[in-house]
């Protein structure tokens, strides 16, 4: 039986820690929703309620629709390779006995580096003239695109950097999930006559599916919030080809000070995130094996 708390204890243990959470998370979230129904411009003290017009304008705005499409492409383009590569690396690592931590250490290193700094490095690596990316491609006789200035390639450059940074992280999650699968399940599969592929398909993949789902949700939420790499590499360009919803929000809010329109975009990101996390909570309950 837990102890019944008195008022002073509640103030100390609950109220104080809740202050920053309230002031910088919960209240701002509600204020954002409220602002999205106004035309506030940050500078003037006046504002008017404009109803749903921020949302309606948004839906009619081509820049918004482009950003929505870019966000979708960016999310799919980063999440799926990150999960697949992370899984493959983890499975390969699980077959080794020695040097595992060393290899994990190399693969995970990108995650701890600052995205800004490494994006600056990548912006030079993508340099069409002196960057090693195109030097490598040229060496193999492959086409050498102008990564950051060609609107067909810019988003892929951003995707490559993001996948590079997150794959090690996904790999660690999968490695952890793999170690939790009892060895005897693979042994019994051996005896039952399952080959390597049958084991991966019928045992490994289904048993790590809770991790896959979790990564899918977290990486998608992460993709919705990607900013640093876009800011350094392309600043949303060329011609808006790398402007995601969040980047659009940033431009609207902190370059154009169109707070109403900006918060409307923020609310949309919020709603998408809320739906995703709700789904993940619902599904994950079904999938817990251990």
């Amino acid at each position, binding site marked *: 039986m*837990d*102890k*019944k708390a008195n008022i002073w204890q*509640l103030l100390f*243990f*609950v109220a*104080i*820690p809740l202050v*920053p*959470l309230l002031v*910088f*998370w*919960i209240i*701002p979230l509600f*204020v*954002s929703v409220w*602002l999205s129904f106004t035309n506030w411009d940050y500078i003037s003290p006046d504002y008017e309620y404009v109803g749903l017009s921020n949302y309606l304008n948004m839906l009619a705005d081509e820049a918004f629709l482009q950003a929505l499409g870019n966000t979708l492409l960016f999310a799919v383009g980063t999440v799926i390779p990150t999960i697949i590569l992370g899984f493959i690396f983890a499975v390969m*690592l699980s*077959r080794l006995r020695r040097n595992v*931590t060393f*290899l994990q*250490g*190399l693969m*995970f*290193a*990108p995650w*701890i*580096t*600052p*995205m*800004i*700094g*490494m994006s*600056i490095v990548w*912006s030079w*690596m993508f340099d069409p*003239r*002196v960057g090693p990316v195109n*030097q490598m491609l040229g060496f193999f006789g492959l086409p050498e695109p102008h990564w950051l200035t060609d609107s067909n390639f810019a988003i892929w450059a951003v995707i490559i950097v993001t996948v*590079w940074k997150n794959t090690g992280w996904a790999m*660690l999650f999968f*490695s*952890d999930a793999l170690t939790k699968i009892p060895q005897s399940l693979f042994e019994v599969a051996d005896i039952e006559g399952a080959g390597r592929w049958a084991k991966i398909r019928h045992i490994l993949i289904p048993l790590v599916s*809770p*991790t896959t789902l*979790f990564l899918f949700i977290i990486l998608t939420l992460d993709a919705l919030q990607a*900013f*640093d790499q876009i*800011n350094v590499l392309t600043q949303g360009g060329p011609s808006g080809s790398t402007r995601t919803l*969040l980047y659009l929000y940033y431009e609207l*809010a*902190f370059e154009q000070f169109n*707070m109403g329109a900006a*918060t409307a975009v*923020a609310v949309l*990101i*919020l709603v998408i995130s*809320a739906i995703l*996390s709700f789904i993940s909570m619902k599904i994950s309950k079904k*999938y817990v094996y251990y």
Partner: protein
Amino acid sequence: MAKREKIEKLILFLILLAIGLFMVFPMVWMMLSSLKTTEEILGGSLTLLPSDPQWSNFPKALEMAPFLRFVWNSFFTASVIVIVQLFLSSLLAYALTQMEFKGRNTLFMIVLSTYMLPAAATYVPSYVIISRLGLMDSLAGIIVSNLANVFTIFLLRQNFLKVPKELIEAARADGASEWTILWKIVAPMSKNALINASILSFVLNFNNYLWPSLITNSEENYLISVGLNRFFNTQGAFEQTFPLIMAATVISVLPLLIIYFVLQKYFISAVSSSSGLKG
């Protein structure tokens, strides 16, 4: 069979080593480039190693902007944030796991529901709040606005739940206060969770960019990423300064990278532990 397996493992190791080296290649390339001359880089040859290491690139970069000050700002704010976060999150996690009060579950559900929401959605109102509090363009502003960390609350709550109830009841029977129980029993028993939460939070706050860049605009208050990006934006257009930009980037990346390679085991277990939070 044993021999074939050995060869197979060796091949597997070599493939994984190649992948691992590929992953750290940008860091290596950055460090090598920071030691080259401009001519060497613009020459466009495939040589990886600098022919004559230009160590002077580092003092030159430091002359152009106070990067050490930026690093210190990042280190200082991240450290304070982590300490206060741990303190506040421990209190709340303790209340959520060991104390009984009305609305405990509701409170937990509210905290839980903010877990996965994007921080960016709070920026506009938070911006106003920071300026009303008079904390615009200050390290204090960065610290105060980053104190809430739902993830840490979760990680601690989950670990506090594992502390056997009998221990806490025995301590209460001995007359220990809740404060004593938290810091003398529950927290020490959850030492790993506290370490893991600190590592993850420190990395995120040290590398933080967007929000600090919005609320700081004088050089003395820049975090490293902010200062570096401003430097890049003003100097990056000139190919001549490329080695200096690489030197500055090395300064921004190296502190955490060194800590990481020294404490690698802890970093990896920190991330693995966070994977247990699903479901």
